C-alpha cells in the first residue's frame, strides 16, 4: 500500500469525524431553540417544526458533504490513478 492510499484512508476518517462535530453542535442548538419556541407558543408548533425540519436538513447537509468527500476518497479517489 503506497502512502497516498494510506493518507486517503486517514483523511477520510478525519473528514467524517471532524465534519460531524460542527453540524452536531448546530443541530443541538437548533432543536433547543425550537423546543424553547414551542414551549412559549404551543399554538405555532406545526410551523416551527416544519421550519425546524428544513433547517435541520440544511445543517445536516454539511455532515453529508463530509461523508461524500470521505466516500470519494475511499472509492473513487482520482489521485490513486495518477501514481502507478
Amino acid at each position, binding site marked *: 500500500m503506497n502512502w497516498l492510499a494510506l493518507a486517503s484512508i486517514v483523511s477520510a476518517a478525519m473528514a467524517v469525524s471532524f465534519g460531524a462535530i460542527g453540524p452536531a453542535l448546530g443541530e443541538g442548538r437548533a432543536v433547543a431553540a425550537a423546543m424553547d419556541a414551542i414551549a412559549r407558543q404551543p399554538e405555532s408548533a406545526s*410551523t416551527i417544526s*416544519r421550519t425546524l*425540519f*428544513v433547517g435541520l*436538513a*440544511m445543517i*445536516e*447537509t454539511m455532515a*453529508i*458533504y463530509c*461523508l*461524500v468527500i470521505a*466516500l*470519494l476518497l475511499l*472509492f*473513487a479517489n482520482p489521485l490513486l490513478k495518477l501514481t502507478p
Partner: protein
Amino acid sequence: MNSPLTSVTLFHVGPVPITLPVVVTWAIMALLVGGGHLLTRRLSLVPSRTQAAFELIVDTVDGQIRDTMRVEPGPYRAFIGTLFAFIFVANWSSLVPGVEPPTAHLETDAALALLVFVAVIWFGIRAVGIRGYLATFAFPSPIMIPLNFLESLTRTFSLLVRLFGNVMSGVFVIGIVLSLAGLLVPIPLMALDLLTGAVQAYIFAILAMVFIAGVVSEGRPEPSPSPAANPRTLP
C-alpha cells in the same frame, strides 16, 4: 464491499447497459402512473372511501404549497406532488427484498435536482416573464448578480448531494452492520432509514417549493413584504 458510487449492470439492451436503479425507477414510475390512472378513472363528487383517502393526500400537498409558497397551489401541485411521491416511494422501496432505492445512486438524484433547476426557470418565466425572471438575479441590488447566479447552481448541487448522501449513507450503514453483526441486528437502523427517507422526500419537495417561490414572489412587486415569508434566507 461494492462502491456506492457505481451501480451493477443487470443486462444490455443493444449497446445500452441497464442497471438496477434504472429498472427500479421504471418500476416505481409504472406503479405511480398505473396507480394514479386506476384511482382517477372513476372520480365522483361523492367520494368513495379510497378516493377520500387520496383526496386527503392531495389536500395535504395543497396545504403545504399554500403555507410555504403563499400562492394558490394550482400550477405547482402536479410537479411538487409528483416529486414527493416519487422520492417517497423510491426511498421506501428498500422495504422490498433485493431492491436498492434508486435515490441511493448519484444519477437519479442528479436527474431530480436538474428537474428542480429547470422547473425554477420554467415556473419563474411563466409567472413573471423572462424580464421578471432575469430581474430576480439582481434582487436586493445588482451587485448580487454573480452571487445569485452562483447560488442557483450550488443550491441545485446541494439538493443533489443531500438526497444522495442521506439515502446512500442509510443503505451503506445497513450493509456494514449486516456484514459485521448478522441477520436481525440492522432492523432498528432500517426503521430509522425509513424515517430519514420520508423526511428527505418532504424536505426535497419543500426546498423545490422554496426555490420556485423565491423566483415567483421576487419578480412580482409585493405590497407588504413580511420577513417570515422571505425564502431568500435559506442558503
